[in-house]
């Protein structure tokens, strides 16, 4: 090592370029792989889908530019009628969104029921959470047997009350969507329950005691003291429920495959059906549906991000 023999004339030691800029460069090096993957598989495809939605494309040959024709056909602009399948799917999506939110109060209710300290309660809690761990495909299968006409447990139960759904829950176009939503509520309620159980654990006992001394109890206590403290849990429950509702695909695909008579389609399912249909791939039209779904979701995403941003500003 001859270098060390040279007298050190200019302290501090001249360091390498990397060493000097270490703090500035390191984060980018650490971010690079994740950003690369995310850009290639998530960010860029969103743009590509927009682009494809202005084309007619079978997925193999050349794309043909058709301008906004796909959207006009979808929404019935000009001298054509609105795409009936799209209309049904859209309204079914609204039904999913509204009814799926029932998972939040149901989850809260079960968590209040389970928030005790008796023997074996931990096992009870995890068994109640069970449905969420199982894949939606299996949930769908299980519920389609539950709904079987005549022999199914559900039909026998409603029959007991002198009430029969014609063709069975999933065979009846007026009922099928509600049947699927009910199946979806099962795991979703379990998820909300676990969120609230965690939230209840962190409720400030002093506030509860103070409120009790002031004579608050039951519903009043719940509404004015407990629920405000559960706000973070409610926010997350809301986020995951909305996303779950708009992502509904597995259950529909397994339970009814869109039927009967297309009455259970939602946008996510209809898009898949169009893009990869048996009658030839209509990628352009499918992408247009996906873009509509994306914009519905975007409204919620902006709200979620805005809420999180408010929190961030409060932090470090």
């Amino acid at each position: 090592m001859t270098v060390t023999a040279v007298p050190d004339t200019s302290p501090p030691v001249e360091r390498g370029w990397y060493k000097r800029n270490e703090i500035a460069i390191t984060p980018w090096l650490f971010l690079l792989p994740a950003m690369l993957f995310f850009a290639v598989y998530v960010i860029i495809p969103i743009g590509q889908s927009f682009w494809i939605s202005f084309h007619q494309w079978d997925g193999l040959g050349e794309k043909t530019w058709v301008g906004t024709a796909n959207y006009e056909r979808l929404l019935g602009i000009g001298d054509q009628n609105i795409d009936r399948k799209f209309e049904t799917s859209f309204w079914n999506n609204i039904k999913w969104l509204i009814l799926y939110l029932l998972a939040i109060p149901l989850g809260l209710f079960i968590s209040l029921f389970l928030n005790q300290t008796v023997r074996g309660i931990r096992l009870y809690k995890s068994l109640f959470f069970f449905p969420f761990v199982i894949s939606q495909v299996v949930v769908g299968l299980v519920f389609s047997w539950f709904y079987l006409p005549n022999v199914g447990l559900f039909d026998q139960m409603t029959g007991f009350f002198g009430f029969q759904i014609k063709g069975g829950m999933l065979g009846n176009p007026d009922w099928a969507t509600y049947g699927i939503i009910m199946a979806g509520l099962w795991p979703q309620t379990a998820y909300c329950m676990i969120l609230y159980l965690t939230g209840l654990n962190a409720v400030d006992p002093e506030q509860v005691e103070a409120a009790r001394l002031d004579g608050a109890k039951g519903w009043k206590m719940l509404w004015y003291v407990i629920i405000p403290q559960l706000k973070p849990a409610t926010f997350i429950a809301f986020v995951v429920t909305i996303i779950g509702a708009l992502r509904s695909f597995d259950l529909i695909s397994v339970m009814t495959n869109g039927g009967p008579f297309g009455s259970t389609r939602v946008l996510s399912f209809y898009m898949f059906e169009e893009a990869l249909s048996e009658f030839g791939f209509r990628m352009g039209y499918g992408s247009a549906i996906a873009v509509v779904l994306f914009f519905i979701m975007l409204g919620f995403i902006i709200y979620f991000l805005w809420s999180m941003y408010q929190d961030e500003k409060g932090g470090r």
Partner: protein
Amino acid sequence: MFPTPIEKSSRQWQISYQLILPLVLILWLAPLLAVALFSIKPDADFVNGNFWGMPSSFEMFNNYGKVFFESNMPKYLLNSLFITIPTVIGAVALSAMAGFALGVYRFKGNLLIFFMFIAGNFVPFQILMVPVRDLTIQMGMYDTVAGLVLFHVAFQTGFCTLFMRNFIRALPFPLIEAARVEGIAEWKIFWYVVLPLMKPALAALAVLIFTFIWNDYFWAVVLTQGPNAQPVTAGITEFNSQFRAAYHLMSAGSIVAALPPVLMFFIMQKHFIAGLTLGAVK
């Protein structure tokens, strides 16, 4: 504590609570109990319309034996494993690094990139479907395990980065500053200081991603076909067409398909719930 602890209430209510609890649980899990019952019944029961009664003979070994030895089920299970495990490793590794970068350093665009990851994670799958399928075909990875893994790693990185970054934010920052004062290289700080503290987050994410990916159905249908690379969630539909209306076999197949994440959940329960409820408490 709310509601009022049961120990402080009347003896009557205490006893009835203990009685109601198992009843409610049985009702709640009724659909699953029914499948479990189906899976040990003989075929004859379904022909005779004995759907919900006691099994006329105990056929558990027969039914499950058929699932394992007379169908593609073992192949599908193996595929699921080969898809799930690399995805878990990939997504956790990428997001640990990204989370470190976003959680520790202040630089322009930090929050913007972070929000990109979150927003991407909320996007509907359908907007990605056509381009991702096309890309996978062009890379010659359609109907391969690798094609699915690459996509899953990329997509799950969004959620995982959100998780990791928030976890790292909550670590004591002076620890990192102290290491810097000592003149330790930044990557060494990641490896020797931050990573060991992140073990709970790594465990939580690993179980969560395992469950998410094992249960994925949509991408399995979009990016694969047939027993070559398809995971068990998609395979179960083929299995069902093989044994059409054979409820006892379909139930046994469903239980086998659902079991791995269930086991994972029970073994790693604490981490699993910690992961799912991140942010539910301030």
